[in-house]
């Protein structure tokens, strides 16, 4: 065991939220060390610049941690959802799509609305300024003036090209009289901050050229320039606490040398994502007096459709998201359920091979004599539609540690269980019917729906959103952190990643996760001296 010097702040995880926190606190002149279990992903390590990029996306770049064999991953099991993440500097943003919509004010007030979810301890208005600030740091694109959302200033760069797929979809939405709007993206439509504008390649699972904001390229350079220290291949095994209940630092393994190191710190920030954070807290035996660590896992209700139209819409080109539809975003109980959902419309598969092997709906090209005719009719003619809704929390949907199986470091293997509830099922039925309506309104000659259930009926959603597992609240009995992300039990430990989200909203969460992390980091910066001695966490 090697003892390391004491730092002002220790950040665990270098993904979206670890990057932002490290940057803010290093820029304030604090001595910050970030520990990341993975390494840097070099530009030519991404699949994008290899001729076999589509194959790599299904194999070594498969975002499902249980379906690839990567040395930077910890062991994980699931009996249901597909846990999607990437473990490296920049975290899951190395593989994400950067669809960039914001939460709505009502997402923070579900307790008032129907009481089946908690109110957040903060409101939309608390987060709104941080959305703007994150957008300015990353560079985003989009169009202002959406009547379905609170007003906002212009995005740093204008909207991405309005593709033929977007045009086709807009006609379908118009026919139905439903809302639609060009998709916001964590992608720059013009050169920004030394990074080049998007070139419409369509391969949006990460983006080595840097047009999409992967945080290793947009945020980490700023953090390092400010003097932050980043230790890669450093897997934290345990967060250490003292007799007063305060965190004293962390024990971690240098995965290159095998050395075990203990680093002391005045403040510990956990940013290991909706799985990695509960895994670490449970393995450390801290922060869980509420028994809520790992529970209330949210993924969103998710179903999808793939449609094919006669016109050539060339969905293989252009940024992955085309338009968003917010017609059903608010609760209307006459539909038979609470909460709402969004349409996240994409372009299509960028690869003919992916199209032939069942992209999105699982509909595969036939083999044999009809193969080429099928492809001629369908490649360039397909559009993908997701419906994504606000799922209700259930403590039994959770991330937990296996009672017997351990990994190479002696840490229990992390497991995931997720099952939609009654409200979620009703919502997904309704969503599938509306996807069918939309496909018909677009004049599709084929509409294939996907409910993500396997042959045994198990819902195996692609879980690119893993949130809620250390939720924030104003009651220590039902939440893990307060409105400033401060652990109720360990007053100098802050959880800043996606696990703190108390509700899922109807959208991709990273704009909100990032805005919250920026807000939390600035709170820590502004209260650093007090936090180095505080022994009690108060409601925010």
């Amino acid at each position: 065991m090697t003892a390391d010097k004491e730092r002002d702040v220790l950040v665990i995880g270098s993904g979206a939220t670890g990057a932002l926190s490290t940057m803010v606190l290093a820029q304030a002149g604090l001595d910050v060390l970030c520990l990341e279990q993975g390494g840097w992903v070099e530009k030519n390590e991404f699949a994008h610049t290899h001729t076999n990029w589509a194959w790599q996306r299904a194999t070594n770049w498969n975002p499902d941690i249980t379906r690839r064999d990567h040395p930077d991953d910890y062991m994980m099991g699931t009996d249901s959802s597909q846990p999607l993440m990437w473990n490296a500097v920049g975290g899951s943003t190395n593989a994400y799509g950067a669809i960039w919509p914001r939460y709505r004010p009502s997402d923070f007030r579900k307790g008032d609305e129907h009481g089946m979810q908690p109110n957040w301890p903060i409101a939309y208005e608390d987060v709104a300024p941080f959305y703007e600030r994150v957008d300015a740091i990353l560079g985003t694109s989009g169009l202002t003036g959406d009547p379905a959302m609170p007003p906002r200033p212009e995005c740093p760069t204008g909207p991405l090209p309005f593709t033929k797929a977007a045009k086709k979809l807009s006609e379908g939405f118009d026919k139905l009289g439903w809302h639609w709007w060009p998709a916001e993206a964590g992608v720059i439509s013009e050169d920004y901050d030394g990074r080049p504008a998007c070139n419409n390649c369509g391969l949006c699972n990460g983006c080595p050229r840097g047009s999409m904001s992967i945080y290793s390229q947009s945020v980490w350079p700023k953090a390092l320039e400010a003097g932050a220290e980043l230790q890669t291949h450093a897997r934290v095994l345990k967060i250490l606490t003292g007799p007063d209940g305060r965190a004293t630092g962390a024990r971690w393994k240098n995965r290159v040398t095998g050395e075990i190191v203990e680093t002391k710190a005045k403040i510990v920030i956990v940013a290991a994502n909706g799985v990695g954070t509960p895994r670490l807290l449970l393995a450390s035996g801290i922060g869980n007096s509420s028994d809520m660590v790992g529970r209330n896992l949210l993924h969103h209700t998710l179903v999808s459709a793939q449609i094919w139209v006669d016109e050539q819409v060339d969905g293989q080109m252009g940024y992955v998201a085309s338009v968003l539809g917010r017609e059903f975003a608010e609760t209307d109980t006459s539909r038979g359920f609470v909460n709402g959902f969004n349409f996240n419309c994409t372009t299509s598969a960028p690869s003919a091979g992916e199209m032939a092997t069942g992209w999105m709906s699982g509909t595969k090209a036939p083999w044999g004599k009809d193969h080429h005719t099928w492809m001629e009719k369908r490649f360039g003619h397909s559009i993908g539609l997701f419906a994504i809704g606000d799922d209700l929390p259930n403590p039994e949907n959770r991330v937990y540690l296996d009672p017997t199986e351990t990994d190479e470091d002696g840490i229990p293997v992390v497991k995931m269980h997720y099952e939609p509830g009654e409200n979620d099922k009703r919502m997904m039925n309704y969503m599938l019917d509306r996807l069918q309506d939309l496909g018909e309104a677009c004049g599709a000659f084929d509409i294939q729906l996907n409910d993500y259930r396997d042959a045994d009926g198990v819902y195996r959603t692609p879980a690119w959103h893993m949130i809620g597992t250390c939720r924030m609240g104003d009651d220590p009995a039902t939440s893990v952190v307060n409105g400033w992300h401060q652990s109720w039990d360990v007053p100098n430990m802050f959880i800043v990643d996606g696990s703190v989200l108390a509700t899922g909203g109807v959208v991709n969460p990273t704009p909100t996760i990032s805005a919250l992390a920026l807000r939390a980091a600035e709170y820590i910066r502004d209260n650093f001296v007090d936090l180095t001695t505080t022994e009690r966490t108060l409601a925010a």
Partner: protein
Amino acid sequence: MTLQDAKKGALLAKLAPSVAAFVDELLPGGDGWPSGATIGVQFPLVERLIEQNGEQALMALAETLDRIGAPFDGMDPDARVEAVKSMEANEPARFGWLRDAAFQAYYESPIVVTLIDAAGTPYKILPHVSGYDLPRFDRATQTPRHNRGRYIPTDQVAPVDTSGLNLDTVKTDKWGLQR
């Protein structure tokens, strides 16, 4: 050499023509499209099979192809198709993997990519490197004018009536595609 070794040797000896013939049943040529074997789909297929499933997968493939009569010498076209269909029915998992891997290898071939592009669907071998040209967003003509959509401001979020939902008592058994 044991009898078993001799049998293995014979199977492996005909593996190359067998995989090529199998690939050509999956992806026959015609109407300007090259067949799978013409552009060498069988080579990445076999490499990837081993990468994903280990070296023993090669022998298993040889045995499977032998069972369906590959390389199909002397069989008429319909009989070849029937032979591949029998593999699809009897070994769906293995067949599915081989079909998908063959499709992927075919469409990553620079020759096929170029043909797709030449036929009028813009398509590149390395789109991320050179990108696709798309016109910039035109605010004058492409900004939505529908004026639809609403949100509830924080101070107007009000209780909704959930009394008719009966979420605890009325259960949805048929959901998803079974609804």
